[in-house]
């Protein structure tokens, strides 16, 4: 296991899946039936809630309460989407925009910081480097939830809460991203190449920008994707940091709509907007995950070897 699952040489993305091929006994279909049925049974469990969410989003309020949950009844999806976006003066649009902004800026920023940091840790020697790196690796063990209250306490002391930067700044710090970039850069950026560029007179930052960064691109996308998802899904940090709905991301906004709907009791149209709003908020991420499979698989692969 000298080269972990991050194998920069094996094509664009590190795909541990394709590295090893195995001889399979030909023509033994019988052995496939039971495992496939077993997996299929569980697949139903994992996809049922999402199927329900989609079906429920297509129903009018009456049908939602009166018809069977896992089958269609009428098709009001587009009305529901319209209601979701127009409720409370179109605040859903603001939440969607905030979520996109926080996720995009945090993901790009965190991936850039991680790429530069990981490259620095991998390819240079400087005083205190190992100690610093151990601090970073150790902090992977500190979950974001545990950090959110202390971060809020400090930021509120400095009068720096209830603004987009109070969400983005903490989300820019990705210790795991730095760790991943370092092991990737060690293998993907040949030291000889850096040395050759230096002899040609290129400066360190030019070498990073023009040569190293391109070689780091697959790991960059992986870190980008994971930070995007982490910020998109983040709930606790925005919940403690933000006090005005105009700064909320989707997660906090939808949770608030839901508690209003539940508190008012009975069949209020708030339920259809919460359900449709939830559907709209998960669709982009599901599409991203399906299309960017090789990146998250390699990222989690690296996590598995990390131990």
């Amino acid at each position: 296991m000298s080269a972990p699952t991050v194998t920069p040489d094996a094509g664009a993305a590190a795909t541990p899946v394709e590295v090893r091929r195995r001889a399979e006994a030909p023509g033994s279909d019988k052995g496939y039936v039971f495992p496939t049925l077993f997996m299929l049974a569980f697949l139903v469990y994992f996809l049922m809630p999402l199927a329900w969410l989609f079906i429920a989003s297509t129903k009018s309020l009456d049908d939602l309460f009166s018809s069977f949950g896992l089958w269609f009844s009428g098709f009001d999806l587009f009305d529901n989407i319209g209601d979701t976006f127009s409720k409370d003066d179109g605040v859903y649009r603001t939440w969607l925009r905030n979520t996109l902004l926080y996720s995009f800026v945090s993901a790009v920023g965190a991936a850039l910081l991680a790429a530069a940091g990981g490259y620095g840790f991998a390819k240079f020697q400087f005083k205190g480097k190992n100690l610093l790196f151990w601090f970073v690796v150790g902090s992977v063990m500190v979950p974001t939830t545990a950090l959110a209250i202390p971060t809020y306490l400090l930021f509120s002391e400095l009068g720096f809460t209830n603004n987009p930067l109070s969400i983005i700044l903490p989300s820019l710090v990705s210790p795991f991203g730095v760790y991943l970039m370092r092991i990737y850069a060690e293998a993907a950026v040949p030291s000889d190449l850096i040395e050759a560029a230096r002899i040609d007179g290129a400066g360190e930052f030019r070498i990073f920008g023009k040569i190293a960064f391109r070689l780091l691109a697959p790991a960059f996308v992986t870190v980008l994707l994971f930070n995007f998802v982490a910020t998109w899904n983040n709930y606790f940090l925005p919940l403690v940091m933000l006090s005005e709905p105009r700064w909320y991301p989707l997660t906090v906004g939808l949770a608030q709509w839901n508690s209003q709907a539940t508190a008012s009791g009975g069949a209020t149209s708030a339920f259809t907007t919460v359900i449709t709003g939830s559907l709209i908020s998960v669709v982009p991420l599901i599409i991203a995950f399906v299309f960017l499979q090789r990146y998250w698989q390699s990222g989690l692969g690296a996590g598995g070897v990390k131990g």
Partner: protein
Amino acid sequence: MTQATTTAPAPATARVPGGRRKRAGDRHGVAGFLFTLPFIALFLAAFIAPLAYALYLSVFREQLVGGTTFVGLDNYTEGVKDQQFTDGVIRVALYLLIQVPLMLLLALVFALILDSGKVWLPKLFRVGIFVPYAVPTVIAALMWGFLYGRDFGPFADVADAINVPPPDFLSQNTMLFSIANVATWTYTGYNMIILYAALRAIPSELFEAAAVDGAGAVRTAIHVKLPLLRPALLLCAIFSVIGSFQLFTEPQIFYSLAPEVIGKAYTPNLYIWNLAFADQRLNYAAALSFLLGIVVFVVSYLVMNAARRQEAR
């Protein structure tokens, strides 16, 4: 796979420099430090500084008379004796004992089946089981909250159809299991992919040898693959333990559905959040955050130690 232990990264780098590289390193060390500087600066500002400030806050107490006074470890001793806090810790520990083994067992079985190659449509299963991870925990909790519900949940629909009382998923006795189900639904696929990637990294000669010896797929999985998966399993277990102690979103969302079951202190994090925001007891909340951190650290250490001892046996 022997390298896949906690100590993997550091020795590799510490031993790398040869003569030539070291010379280059001396000359370019400043540039290397500058590359890491932006990250380190933010790391200090948004990671270390908050922890340091919270640690500072935790040794003070705000009093109605006399303002803020230094109280040493009083907040911590109060926390240890605070039954709402300890009950929450015990509750998540119980939750962890049920949820983590069940989830990891499922993830392990899925990964082994996918890796055996004896399944049709492997890609569909890989993506389909992983997809819940892309769903924000808030949305997952909202969704399951609706599914559990009596008004328009499909379980209640089925119960109505066959004339039995609808099951109560959010009662005192069932709540913890209902929360565990949400977490299992969200994270099983994530763990499956980690284990699957680790399986794929095992050199195939090992399986070929087992096949030559006449071992079937199941026996190969148990006797050859499982022992090699131990480091990856341990990693999954540690992260699940950390995650379990941080439980917050699900109980916070379910509070609006069953306020009398959840209350103010169902989990330690929910209690800390209520202390900080509803009660404005910031100093005490900071101290409890650290107490919770200590609990997480100790339990993670125990899990790691137990795994190591088993390895030695």
